[in-house]
C-alpha cells in the first residue's frame, strides 16, 4: 500500500487513548501523522516541567491541560485528524461514554492501578474490543527487551513487562517513546489487517 492508501484507510477509524502522558501523547502524534481519522483522548492532568523529558509537550505549555496542549500540538502536525478531548479522570463510570465508539483503545496511563482498572472495565464492557496496554518502559537501554505480547482475544501488551518506574529508574524519552510507538504501530497493523480481510 502507498502512504496515500494507508492514510485513506486509517481515516475511517476512531482510536481512544486513555491518558495523555508519555505513552498517550507520543502514540497520539504517531497515529495522527499516519492518518487516523479521529482520536478521543482523555486525561485530567496539567503539563509540568517534569513531563518534558519524554512527553510531546513544550516548555511554553507548562500549566496547560494536557489534553488541550496535545490537541494543539497534533493540529500543528497538519495531519487533519479530528481530536476530541476529555478533561477528566477516567473511571469505570465514564469509560463507556468516552470510548464507546472507538475501534481500538490504547491504555496510556502512568499508574499500574489505573491500567488494571481500564483493562478490567474494557474487558467487561466489550469483550473482544481491541485493547493495547503499555507495561514496562522505565530506564534506558535494554532495547531488545521491549516487545509486543498477544494475550489473546484482542488484548496486547507493549513493553518489557518488568521495569517499574521509581526515583532511580525514571521514565526517559527513548524507552517511553519505543513503547508508545509500538502501541501506535500495532493500532495501524490491526486496523489495516481488518481492511484487507
Amino acid at each position: 500500500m502507498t502512504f496515500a492508501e494507508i492514510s485513506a484507510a486509517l481515516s475511517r477509524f476512531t482510536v481512544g487513548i486513555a491518558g495523555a502522558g508519555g505513552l498517550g501523547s507520543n502514540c497520539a502524534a504517531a497515529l495522527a501523522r499516519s492518518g487516523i481519522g479521529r482520536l478521543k483522548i482523555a486525561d485530567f492532568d496539567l503539563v509540568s516541567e517534569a513531563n518534558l523529558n519524554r512527553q510531546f509537550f513544550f516548555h511554553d505549555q507548562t500549566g496547560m491541560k494536557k489534553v488541550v496542549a496535545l490537541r494543539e500540538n497534533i493540529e500543528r502536525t497538519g495531519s487533519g485528524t479530528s481530536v476530541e478531548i476529555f478533561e477528566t479522570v477516567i473511571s469505570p463510570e465514564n469509560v463507556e461514554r468516552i470510548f464507546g465508539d472507538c475501534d481500538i483503545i490504547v491504555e496510556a496511563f502512568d499508574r499500574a492501578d489505573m491500567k488494571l482498572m481500564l483493562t478490567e472495565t474494557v474487558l467487561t464492557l466489550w469483550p473482544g474490543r481491541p485493547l493495547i496496554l503499555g507495561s514496562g518502559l522505565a530506564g534506558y537501554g535494554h532495547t531488545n527487551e521491549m516487545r509486543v505480547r498477544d494475550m489473546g482475544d484482542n488484548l496486547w501488551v507493549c513493553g518489557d513487562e518488568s521495569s517499574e518506574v521509581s526515583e532511580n529508574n525514571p521514565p526517559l524519552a527513548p524507552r517511553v517513546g519505543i513503547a508508545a510507538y509500538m502501541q501506535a504501530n500495532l493500532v495501524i497493523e490491526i486496523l489495516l489487517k481488518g481492511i484487507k480481510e
Partner: protein
Amino acid sequence: MMEITLNNRKEIFDTESMTVAEMLEIKSFTFRMRMVKINGKLIKKDQYSTTVIKNGDDVKMLYLMSGG
C-alpha cells in the same frame, strides 16, 4: 498432578486442583498489579481465592508496571 498452559507454556503442578490465589503462591508471583485470564475469561482480584484452575486450563497472566 495437573497440567496447565501458563502464558503459552505447559506447566505441571503437583496438585489435583488449585485456586488462582494458590497458583500465585506456588509460583511466588507476588507483584500486586496483575491481570489474570483463564480460558479467555478475565478473573478479577476478588475472585482469586474462589476461582479454581482445572487440568488443561489456559491461564494468561500479565503484570502491570507503573510508568507511562
